[in-house]
């Protein structure tokens, strides 16, 4: 690993860059239109839920089978899940993320969640189709071509099965995770997915704590991933849900925490407002632990470039990005992308910026 930690940019540095009044920035019709579009979703308050400790495949580097949570017992009682969802709604949660280990193995529990809180998403390997009656976004994890999936995930014909299950399904977003050794495969995989009219977004493998395998990124692989993402974004603008600023945020030599300051409870002691106050990560026995709560627990925070994390961490930094038109456009593209990936019925607009722009206080 050759990634240096950065000093957190001082408030003074960021504030000094607020060279233009916000009202002037949003006077631009294109910016105002996008601002009004995304701000309607500021009511979203998320929490995440591990659904079962079972999975039908075993992947190298899987976050779920790291740390203590994999040893938690399952509570598969729909009555208890319904009670939990009602309590979550009561405390203001409007959006649920159903994740580990494999939610498609407990579709009845997914349905209970959907009945109570109708906005959300499910992270799945896509081997088993989640019934259409569960109207959440479905995020199908893709880790390379079928040869790579067989090697890293011990899964045969995985991409073929994923497409069979979710082709033409408006809930589906295929999430291509760039590891250190599958970057070049995106070109072929993207061609296949676009041929089947599948929508795709990108994730960067973020190592679990203590992970010593070969998938962990270094500076060279991050640069290669950046180039590949920009290539594919340009080649498939109708199929790729991403923006140049997403590329920057997720392939920077610094991780999301160093760039933006993670706002999840695990890294944020404040309970005053925002994610530090409202976010919880529930285990399969419906318990939660504030000290372990973030969107992908057991990720090494210094290496975190996870797409789920960025969706909250970058989005929450509205203030830092409201400094000048270009930086604000970049942020709007990021938020527009995040909403298209995570919210059923939200359509992504054309990116306002076609070039990469640096995060506030940092270089590209």
């Amino acid at each position: 690993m050759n990634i240096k930690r950065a000093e957190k940019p001082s408030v003074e540095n960021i504030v000094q860059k607020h060279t233009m009044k916000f009202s002037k920035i949003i006077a631009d019709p294109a910016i105002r239109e996008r601002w009004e579009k995304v701000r309607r979703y500021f009511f979203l308050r998320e929490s995440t839920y591990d659904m079962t400790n079972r999975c039908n495949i075993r992947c190298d580097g899987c976050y779920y089978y790291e740390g203590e949570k994999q040893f938690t017992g399952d509570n598969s009682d729909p009555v208890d899940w319904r009670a939990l969802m009602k309590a979550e709604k009561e405390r203001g949660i409007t959006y649920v993320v159903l994740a580990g280990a494999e939610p498609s193995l407990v579709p009845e529990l997914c349905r209970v969640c959907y009945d109570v809180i109708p906005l959300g998403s499910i992270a799945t390997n896509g081997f088993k189709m989640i019934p259409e009656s569960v109207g959440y976004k479905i995020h199908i994890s893709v880790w390379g071509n079928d040869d790579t999936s067989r090697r890293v995930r011990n899964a045969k014909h995985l991409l073929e099965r994923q497409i069979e299950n979710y082709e033409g399904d408006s809930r589906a977003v295929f999430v291509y995770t760039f590891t250190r050794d599958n970057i070049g495969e995106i070109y072929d995989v993207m061609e296949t997915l676009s041929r089947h009219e599948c929508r795709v977004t990108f994730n960067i493998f973020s190592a679990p704590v203590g992970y010593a395998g070969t998938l962990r990124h270094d500076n060279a692989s991050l640069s290669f991933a950046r180039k590949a993402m920009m290539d594919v974004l340009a080649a498939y603008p109708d199929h790729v849900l991403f923006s140049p600023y997403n590329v920057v945020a997720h392939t920077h030599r610094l991780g999301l925490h160093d760039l933006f300051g993670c706002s999840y409870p695990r890294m944020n002691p404040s309970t005053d407002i925002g994610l530090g106050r409202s976010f919880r990560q529930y285990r399969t026995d419906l318990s939660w632990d504030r000290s372990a709560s973030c969107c992908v627990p057991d990720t090494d925070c210094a290496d975190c470039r996870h797409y789920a994390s960025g969706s909250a961490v970058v989005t929450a930094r509205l203030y830092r990005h409201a400094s000048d038109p270009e930086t604000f456009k970049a942020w709007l593209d990021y938020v527009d992308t995040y909403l298209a990936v995570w919210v059923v019925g939200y359509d992504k607009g054309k990116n306002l910026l076609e070039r990469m722009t640096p995060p506030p206080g940092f270089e590209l």
Partner: protein
Amino acid sequence: MAEKKLILRVAEILIDELKLEDVTPETFDPEVDLIDELGIDSMDLTTVVLVLQDEYGVTIDEDDYPKLKTVRLIAEYIDEKLKEL
């Protein structure tokens, strides 16, 4: 202590930006806890902060958001910042 005029203007901005219904600047209780009682989150608050910065020409640090719990506290915060100018 912030002037009533400033309190009313802060309330007006909150109502406009957050599209609050059934309340006017005059009927907005300046002591209501915006987070606990009104359910305002960080994105809503940031939006209001950006408008306040524009209007009063002050800088409101992200680290100070937890201090901005009520309309009265926001008005007092701005009042203090204005005195520093």
